[in-house]
Structures are given as C-alpha cells and as structure tokens.
C-alpha cells in the first residue's frame, strides 16, 4: 500500500486539487449559473501564491489564504459586473475573464515572470493538508445540497421565478455562488502551484475550462460526489489507458460524448436514478398486499430459462 501510494502520489494530489477546480465550476452550475469564473480564479490564486512566496517570502498557509480570498473577491466582483447575463452569454463572459487573466500574467513583467512564468514557489504541502482542505470544502458543500439550503439552491436553479415567490433572493444566491466559486478556484490554483513549484501562463488556459466541464458532465453536476467521480475518472484515465497509447484522446472523446448522450445526470445521476427506481418498486411492492415479493435483480435479469 505504501509503495503504491508513493508511486502514485502525484496522481493522488492532483485528484484533490482537480476536484477543487471542478467544484469551482459545479457550485455555480448547481444554482443555475453557467460560469467558469472559478477557472480564472485558479489562475489568480496560482499566480498570487507564487508571487507571494517568490517575491515576498510568504508562508505556504498565508499564500493559500491570500489566493483563496483574492479568488473570492475577484469572482464576486465579476458576478456583480455580469449578473444580468444568463446562459451561454454568461459562460462566454466568464471564459473571457479566464483568458484575460492569462493575457495579464503574460504581460506582468518581473512580477509574474512573463511568458516563462515563475519558478521556485515550493510550498510545504503534503497530501494530508490537501485532504484536510478538501474535507472542509466537501462538508461545507454538503450543507448546500441537503436540508433547507439545498432546497433553496435547487429552487434557484430549477425555477428562479418560483424561488422568488418563495422569498428567495435569487440574485443574492447567484452572487454568493460566484464568491464560493472564486474561493475554490483560488484554493485549487494556489495548492497546485505550491505542489509543483512553478506556474506559467499555459497552466491557466482554455484547457482547464474543458477539463472542469467534462469532469462535471461525466461525473454529474448535482452533487460534489459527481465532481469527485468525474475527477477520479479523468485524472486517473491516462494511467489506466496507458496501453491504448495514442488512442487515448479518442477514448476520452467517446467517453465524454457517450456520457453527454446516455447519462444526462452523469455517472452519479444515473446511479441515483437507479436507486430511486429500486426504492419505488420496493415501496409499491410493500404497499400492495397481493403483490408477489420483489424478485432479486439477478433472477429478474435472467428471465425464463
């Protein structure tokens, strides 16, 4: 086990930081906000952490806190600016924000290291630290999925007019999701950079938008579990698919297309639907006194022989 861990430590750590990036896109999506601002904040967080360590000698914790706060503030300000946009227009505006961050860091001179980026920002982070941060984030997000807050977030996504009639300030919820998204993006970016010790403009480009979106499409957009499943699939897929060599991108494309067509709720959505169908059948069987006892799934699938 220990050998396996040390030979896969990069993938384990990458899973945790990528999960935070995916959540930075999933959180606004759960409130019906199609925003990629979290990816831009990943760049802001990554660069601020690197600048803080390289130029100002900040500690690892200070650099991460600075990155998270800056990400939250930047995303909230962006949310205020573009709060009247919806759907694809909102998505495009936030993609543009990400691309602008990339342009700014290229032209940032000595502060950002220009096109070459910054080196030597090695933090004192280990897997335990990452796990602790992810655990806190996941627990906090769980409260936005269950109970009263979960209901309100779902109402904001499914039917803003209904939500408004139910006393929910839809605009306030949407702005809040921008801020949370920015914090998560900032955390992800800073921790990624402090693990790698380097950051370049190429690290915060459009491919991160595609990565976060595909993770959510395949994993599921309704719960952090979906983001986790998607992250595991896409971070570990290159390792698992090493034997297909140059066909890896084809497999990747087919997987995403198949998930989009056949699993509209992602892997976790399909699993939840299956579980609900099972419970419904069980409830119907229990409520009907004349009904025969439910057949075991294996026997039912086998049919008559």
């Amino acid at each position: 086990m220990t050998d396996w861990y040390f030979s896969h430590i990069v993938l384990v750590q990458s899973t945790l930081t990528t999960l935070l990036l995916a959540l930075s896109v999933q959180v606004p999506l759960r409130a019906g906000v199609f925003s990629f601002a979290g990816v831009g904040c990943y760049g802001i967080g990554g660069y601020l952490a690197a600048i803080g360590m390289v130029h100002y000698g900040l500690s690892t914790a200070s650099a991460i806190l600075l990155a998270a706060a800056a990400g939250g503030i930047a995303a909230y300000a962006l949310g205020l600016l573009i709060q009247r946009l919806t759907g694809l227009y909102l998505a495009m505006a936030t993609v543009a924000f990400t691309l602008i961050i990339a342009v700014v860091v290229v032209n940032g001179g000595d502060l950002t290291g220009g096109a070459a980026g910054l080196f030597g920002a090695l933090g004192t982070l280990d897997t335990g630290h990452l796990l602790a941060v992810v655990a806190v984030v996941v627990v906090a997000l769980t409260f936005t999925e269950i109970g009263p807050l979960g209901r309100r977030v779902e109402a904001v996504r499914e039917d803003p007019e209904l939500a408004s009639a139910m006393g929910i300030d839809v605009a306030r919820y949407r702005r809040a999701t921008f801020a949370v998204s920015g914090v998560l993006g900032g955390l992800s970016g800073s921790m990624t950079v402090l693990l790698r010790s380097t950051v370049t403009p190429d690290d915060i480009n459009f491919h991160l938008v595609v990565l976060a979106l595909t993770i959510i499409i395949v994993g599921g957009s309704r719960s952090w579990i979906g983001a986790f499943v998607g992250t595991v699939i896409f971070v570990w897929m290159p390792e698992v698919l090493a034997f297909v060599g140059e066909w890896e991108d084809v497999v990747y494309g087919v997987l995403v297309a198949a998930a989009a067509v056949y699993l509209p709720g992602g892997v976790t959505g399909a699993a939840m639907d299956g579980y609900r169908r099972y419970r419904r059948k069980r409830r119907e069987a229990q409520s009907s006194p004349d009904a025969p006892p439910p057949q075991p799934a294996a026997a039912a699938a086998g049919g008559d022989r």
Partner: protein
Amino acid sequence: MAASTAATTGDERRAEPEATVLRADDVAVHFGGVKAVDGVSITLTAGRIFGVLGPNGSGKSTLLAALTRLVPLTRGRLEFQGKPYDTVRPHTIAARGVARTFQTVRILPGRTVFDNVALGAESAGRPGSIGRAGKAERGRVRQRVRTAIERTGLSGKERHRPDELSYGYQRRVEIARAIASEPTLLLLDEPTAGMNRQERDDITGLLDDLRGEGLTQLLIEHDVQMMVEACDHLFAMNFGELIADGEPESVVRHPAVQEAYLGTQGRAHA
C-alpha cells in the same frame, strides 16, 4: 381530503375581519403595445374569497403576477395591509404574508413532496436569507409542513417525488406549499385545473375552511360554477380591463361578462 382539525398557528399573521388586506389602484401592465392589464383597481378585505373571472388572455394571470411583483407595473399603486409595495423586490412579498400558486404546476422535480412543501413553510419571515435557521424555527417548519400535507390530503405521500404523483396531486403539492407559509393572502391561479369533480370539491372545501380561519384568498378559475359557489366576491376581466365586480351571481349575469364568455350572438341564444 383530511379533515381540517389542525389548529392554525399563523393566526397572528391574519388581518382583522373586514380590514383591507390588499389594494390595487389603477394597475397597468403593458408589454410593448399589448395592454395585458390596464387600469385595474381592486380591494381585498380580510377573511373573504375573491375570484377573478375572464376568458383566456383577459389578463387574469398577469394581474396576479403584478400583485406579486413578478412583472413590473407600467403604472398604478399597490398596498398590502396599508403599506405601499409597488417598488419592492419580488422575493420580499412572501415575508409580507403573500403566498401563491401558479397557472401551470411548478414544483421541484427532483425533490420529495415534503421538501416541496417545506420550501413554502420556510419562506415565511426569511426574505432572501441564505443562513441556516435555528432549531426552534426548524421545528416550526416541520410542523407547518405536516399540517399543510394533512390538510391537502397528501398524507402518506411525503416521500414521493412529483413524477410519482398524478396531476391532481401535484396541484395539491402547490397548494400545500402555499398554505404552509401561513400567509395573510393566498393567491391561487387555477388551483383545480386538471382535477376531477371529487378533487375539485376537496379543494373547494379546503378553501372554505381556510376562509373560516380568516385567510383572505384571491382565486383565478375558468370554472364559473365553482367560482360562484366558492367566492364571496367576483371580479370579471376582459382585454386587460375590469368589466364587472360584485356579488358572484350578479357578476356572471352581467351583460359584459356574458358577452365576454359567449359573445353577443351566444348571449342572444342563451
């Protein structure tokens, strides 16, 4: 329908009998050149059921949307319990004590009946709040949900999801959600649409019970007979304007109302 024996815990939100609950004065909602509502003035007093009649496209639902601030007024004034509210944001209406149902069923598809009704119960008194309610408030919410579920005949279906319910039951979920907020004013947009006779009678009985408890209601319906039986006062609309109002029997016999529903020739044959 379960007997409505449960005590109403929202009595403190009910207005004094005959007090003015809502006043709309010269309300107009225009969409470009279309005058969906034009110069409508209505007054709703406490503890009575008011109805709005009118053919399709007469502006009934737009009037309801205007009263709940979901559409902006082109002109006019709105007062709720003596306080103007024509410039407030729509999400603050629920906390003032106004609950509504919609013309088409609008419930959260991925949530259980309990969750959908709880959404209404939680809306009372917490305008736009994101934070978590206290333990006592959560207990009150659960009690309000249970009462609303029982009163609308949804007992035993708390854990069902909307796609497991008939259309009539989905309508009940909407009504349960609205009354769970223990409102001062209940606005119902075609609450019995898609229901059979028995279900309609159940809902009418519930509305009657709520009236007995002092809840003011404004009903929009196409079913003229039901409106006459259920309402204390009717408003009739056509082409966005108020064409008659008064006692239900007199309103449905009003020539302008008969013409709106049957046309001039239809009235001659009637």
